[in-house]
């Protein structure tokens, strides 16, 4: 994990990119710190891959400045930038062996042949492919190709490693396994990693900080917990995880407190920290499913409780999702309950009591 006083590795200053009339990047600003695991997260077409490619030098920017380690990259070609990339398709050279692939970038390295071979072997060992050097690259599995691509990039000791949706081609088990391996690897080598992904869960699991992008702009740049608990817009809240949106009216606003009346929940006081700046939308309050709890038998709510009726039950094994109509209204919320022994899964139509906490509410307006 990085601390706030770490030096800046990459800085974007009002970066714009046009493809003809299409405005792909619309004024990107922000910094990425040295040694950080940083993610660019967003739906397809949001500009995250374009931004990554401008860092690598594969795309020119139309205006603005990209600084890497204090140097303006405007006139620096891709092959001389202190960055290396793990491509989405891995881009393993099919006419070479694994070792030749990993050693591809060492041609101009002044070290002797034996030293280079040792470096290649070391890089392969680091990614868990010890002894694979002589194999033909085209005979590898998807996961192995990815490891080769990682070793090939890391052997050059770049200041920044760029990862373009590296896990999207792997199956679920392998993906989860590689997520953990990548985190470990990043801590081990201490290089700045920049990951592009459309998978919000992956971004939350792996990153120190995340930039959520929509339509060529960074909507929010924050650490995973802030992003999840205090999204700064309805759009970000909707993209990261699941969130219930409940229509509300703002009653009054004084100091750091906002008084609202949320449909089905009643009168609530929300901390100003949980109310990002107004955007002129009709007000809603957001609640994550896991902040709502069903009350069984004579359990008492710690803070607030509301009555409801179960409309839908979705059983997941370890969890059950319930869709519940709140307090005789047409407001439906989803809540998640961990399945524990002695707590039965309830049926559709059951009248329930739902416990919730005002501090978990976020106000969007």
């Amino acid at each position, binding site marked *: 994990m990085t601390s706030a006083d770490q030096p800046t590795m990459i800085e974007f200053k009002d970066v714009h990119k046009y493809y003809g009339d299409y405005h792909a990047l619309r004024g990107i600003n922000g910094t990425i710190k040295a040694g950080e695991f940083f993610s660019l997260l967003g739906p397809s077409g949001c500009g995250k891959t374009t931004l990554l490619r401008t860092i*690598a030098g*594969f795309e020119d920017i139309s205006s603005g400045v990209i600084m890497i380690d204090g140097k303006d990259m405007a006139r620096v*070609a*891709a*092959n*001389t930038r202190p*960055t*290396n*990339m793990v*491509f*989405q*398709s891995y*881009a393993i*050279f*099919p*006419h070479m062996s694994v070792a030749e692939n990993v050693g*591809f*970038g060492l*041609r*101009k390295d002044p070290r002797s042949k034996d030293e280079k071979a040792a470096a290649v072997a070391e890089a392969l060992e680091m990614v868990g492919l010890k002894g694979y050097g002589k194999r*033909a690259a*085209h005979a590898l599995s998807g996961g192995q190709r990815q490891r080769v691509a990682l070793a*090939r*990039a890391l052997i*050059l000791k770049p200041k920044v490693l760029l990862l373009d949706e590296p896990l999207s081609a792997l199956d679920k088990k392998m993906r989860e396994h590689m997520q953990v391996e990548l985190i470990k690897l990043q801590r081990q080598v201490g290089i700045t990693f920049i990951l592009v992904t459309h998978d919000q869960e992956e971004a939350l699991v792996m990153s120190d900080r995340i930039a959520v992008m929509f339509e060529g702009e960074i909507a929010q740049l924050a650490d995973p917990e802030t992003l999840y608990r205090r999204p700064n817009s309805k759009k970000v809240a909707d993209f990261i995880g699941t969130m219930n949106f409940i229509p509300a009216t703002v009653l009054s606003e004084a100091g750091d407190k906002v008084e609202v009346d949320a449909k089905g929940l009643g009168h609530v006081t929300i901390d100003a920290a949980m109310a990002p700046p107004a955007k002129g939308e009709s007000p809603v309050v957001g609640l994550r499913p896991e902040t709502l709890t069903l009350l069984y038998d004579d359990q008492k709510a710690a803070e607030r409780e509301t009555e409801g009726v179960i409309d839908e039950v979705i059983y997941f094994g370890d969890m059950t999702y319930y869709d519940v109509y709140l307090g005789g209204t047409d407001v439906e919320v989803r809540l998640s309950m961990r399945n524990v022994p002695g707590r039965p899964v309830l049926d559709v139509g059951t009248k329930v009591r739902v416990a919730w906490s005002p501090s978990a509410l976020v106000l969007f307006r």
Partner: protein
Amino acid sequence: MAATPSSEVRSGLKLISPPVFYAILMLAAPLATVLIYSVMTGEKGAVSLPLTLDNYYELFTKPIYRALMWRSLMVSFFVTLATVLLAYPVAYFVSFHVNPSRKSLWLFLITIPFWTSYIIRVSLWRTILGYDGILDSVVMGLGLSDTQPNILSNGVLSIIITLAHAYAPFAVLPIFVSLEKVDRSLLEAGQDLGESRWMTFLRVTLPLSLPGVIAAVLIVFIPTVGDYVTPELIGGGRTPMIANLMETQMLKQRDQAMGSAIAVAAMTIVALISIAFVLWNRRFLGGRK
């Protein structure tokens, strides 16, 4: 549910019988005839027993055969070299720099020379290369030389130029196909790993396009060795190649046995060279995804 093996075999044979019939009648039978003729005794317009190796003995001892075979191979070698060297940049340009929606148009345009009969194309080359022809006029007009180059008087050179022009599209297409198959992210990877565009071409694009180059070499080399029309038309028969000698033996001398022996020898040499070439390059042809 499954048919018995024997009936499967029967239906399989039925399915392949038309091509088998074709292959036997059109390929195997003529080849066998030529092979058998080559070891028979030639008479005027006929062949007869006994079987003999005299034809081959003559082939290996008389210098004229060796000289013409050698000339044919040299011409083919230079035609192949020129064709592939000129076709590669064209194929590269179409594959990498032409808008994808226009690629088929470009390939179509490249085949335009084929719309004209080869005889006419050869005649045109005579006009271009001959004494006081277009090339001579240009060279003299620009004052590049005091004497007319008259390339046509150099039989081998004019044959090479004419053949290289004729086979250019055959070389462009296989090279184009193999370049199209090169994953473009590999080129970005090459640059990402510190190589310039030129070094990335040498280390990535070129080796990956070699299967197409090898195909182009074979497609151009094999037929040009046996080319008969070009030496006849371009040099008026003054610069014969091995195929012209076959024609002389077969039709003018009416010694079909000798003609067949030349054909078998030429075929064997071309086959051996081609096999050696493919084996030498087999590491570039290996299976890959």
